[in-house]
């Protein structure tokens, strides 16, 4: 019993020392507290696939009431900004090449005649495919506007529309705003990057300064060192996560369907796994530079293979299996489901236990390495 109390006392002392080392120095205090807030603000706005500004150019060779009516619908969206009117087709290439416009809409001279005759009246759409995702989204907007034009035109001319109409609904995110799923995903990403790096540096710094060898000859056991290093990193991670969550709620006002308790339970488990990986990296590294770089070599694929930037379902099967050892993958799923679907802890269990296994494996490996590697 008293051995346990002694052990707790030693861990507590180590935790206290670690926290002091970070929070007492002004520069390192700022480096822990300010970047997460800046990042969520900037990336909250930047990480979006929504397009709300499409500069386009028009080549209207028909110049009829119908073509003007169609084009007015583009200008009326507020998204399409007409940057220039072209006079002939030879100007199209330069407009796209020089990135003056993302799209060129060309209306041929037979447009109104074909429309009046009931023949298919074609308009040409030329899009800059340097970013093909943007081009595809912008083309989708054009199709929507033309569909609306068609429906109105048919109604005005007493004809019925196409026999099949489709109605669209998106569950959990009716307006399909990218931000609603991006911000919950970014919470985990930022916290992982900061805490994993922090944990990776913690042991490496002691190694580089030679104080780790001193720690090993004190009565503190390797497992206690591990806990003493893991707890402060986790606490700082929770602090950062809380700040980011506050920005998500108070600034971006992302609708939150689930319970805060469930989200924190998931985040805590995620942080233990992230810190475990960080400490394991730290236990291998001999210097701080090595710790940072090894940490990064791990963080980079975790960030890319998490579903943050591109969907996991789009990946080849081999990479999909690889994502199973990525704690960020689970954190993102949990955050999204709690935020948008209001998922409870029961349905999240398939995402919780893998993180527990990752944490157990990495933390024990780190402890073993502490004892067996003397730099």
């Amino acid at each position: 019993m008293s051995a346990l109390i002694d052990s707790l006392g030693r861990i507590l002392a180590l935790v206290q020392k670690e926290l002091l080392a970070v929070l007492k120095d002004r520069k390192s205090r700022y480096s822990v507290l300010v970047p997460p807030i800046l990042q969520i603000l900037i990336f909250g706005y930047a990480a979006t696939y929504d397009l709300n500004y499409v500069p386009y150019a028009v080549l209207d060779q028909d110049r009829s009431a119908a073509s003007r009516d169609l084009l007015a619908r583009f200008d009326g969206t507020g998204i399409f900004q007409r940057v220039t009117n072209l006079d002939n087709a030879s100007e199209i290439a330069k407009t796209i090449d020089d990135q003056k416009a993302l799209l060129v809409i060309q209306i041929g001279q037979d447009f109104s005649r074909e429309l009046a005759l009931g023949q298919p009246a074609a308009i040409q759409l030329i899009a800059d495919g340097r970013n093909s995702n943007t081009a595809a989204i912008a083309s989708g907007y054009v199709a929507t506007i033309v569909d609306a034009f068609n429906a109105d035109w048919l109604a005005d001319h007493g004809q019925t529309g196409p026999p099949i109409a489709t109605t669209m609904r998106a569950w959990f995110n009716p307006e399909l705003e990218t931000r609603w799923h991006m911000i919950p995903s970014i919470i985990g990403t930022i916290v992982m990057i900061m805490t994993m790096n922090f944990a990776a540096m913690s042991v490496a710094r002691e190694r580089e300064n030679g104080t780790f060898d001193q720690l090993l000859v004190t009565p503190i056991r390797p497992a206690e060192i591990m806990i003493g290093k893991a707890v402060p990193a986790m606490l700082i991670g929770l602090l950062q996560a809380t700040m980011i969550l506050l920005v998500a709620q108070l600034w971006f006002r992302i609708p939150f369907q689930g319970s805060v308790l469930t989200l924190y339970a998931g985040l805590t488990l995620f942080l233990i796994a992230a810190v475990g990986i960080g400490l394991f990296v730290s236990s291998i590294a001999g210097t701080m530079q090595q710790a940072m770089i090894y940490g990064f070599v791990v963080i980079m694929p975790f960030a890319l293979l998490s579903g943050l930037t591109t969907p996991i379902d789009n990946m080849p099967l081999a990479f999909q299996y690889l994502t199973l050892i990525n704690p960020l993958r689970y954190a993102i799923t949990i955050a999204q489901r709690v935020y948008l679907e209001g998922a409870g802890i029961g349905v999240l269990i398939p995402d919780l236990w893998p993180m527990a296994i990752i944490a157990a494996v990495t933390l024990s490996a780190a402890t073993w390495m502490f004892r067996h590697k003397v730099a």
Partner: protein
Amino acid sequence: MSATSGLAAKLRRIRALVRKESWQIVRDPSSVAIGVIMPVMLILLFGFALSLDVTNVPVAVVLENPTPAATDLAAGFRLSPYFDAHYTTSMEAARTMMLDRTVDGIVRIRPDFARHLALGDAQVQIIVHGGDANRARLIEAYAQGAIAQWAARRGSAGEPVTTGPVVVQSRIWFNEANDSHYFLVPGLIVMVMTLIGAFLTTMVMAREWERGTLEALFVTPVRVDEILWSKTLPYFALGMIGLALCFLAAKFLFYVPFRGSLWVLTGASMLYLLVALGIGLFISSAVKSQLVASQLAFVATFLPALMLSGFIFDLRSTPLAVQAIADVFPARYFVSLLQTVFLAGNIWPVVLPEAGILLGMMLVLLALNRFVTRKKLA
């Protein structure tokens, strides 16, 4: 005479420092990790794993009354390369599949579909999971496409189906195949250059400050600009190797078209690499602590290159304030340059202004670095 011997001595000092720095790089396994393992890993990830293109999306097709017309429409989804259709007869089952994320969308064909089709006012309901909005939007568009195709097929089979009066014929220039690798793989070069140039070097000066070895250098005849050169050149060489690796992979592994000239690519990459090195050295000299430098390295180099460069997320849609912040980081100019040189060609009205801005940034950083690395005690 004394000027030439002074220059010779300067070159000798730089050479000695470069040699020391190069040995340090070669001996440290972490440099190998970032110089070789990282580019290869990124090439594999960007080339094989990351894709924004939608194929084989699992969708539930709800056939509430399997009349011939409804079954035929449902078969259209099974045939489409974009969808992996799961048939069901009840909306409840589809709902459960959606909540489990077994499917990402539901296509609901109502029991009275055939009757309404005959009347000319049939409706098909498409429900998507909005969890990933970008994917959801693409699924909607493809589902609409699959239904339109089915309608057209029925039309040609003799049953009248009118399409809309105005049809859009769209072409996507520079990327006819609409393949997201075409812009993701050039983006690789930005990541690799940023990592080697800025990320690796954030630790370099801070380490010397922290250990006091920089102060030791100050009492030698070595000048400040010579120290900076010696910290730049070896990493510059490492960065160019990374560029060569990425370029070869883009061209011969992923067949990304390269329509510009190799000279423009090399020149622009050298400029960007120097800017990245300047940023790394500046952070390193300014904070003088490895722990703080390592945290800043993520915030100031890696994340802006990933998120604020227009490489994955298009900057056109961001608020002006965010665009202004993105303007400060060099990555967006380099991404624009690369996308143009790879996919469009040597378009000078795009290439020259972007290169000019990078050149300006390089000069400013050079001056800043001379200023923060003066010979004075920390």
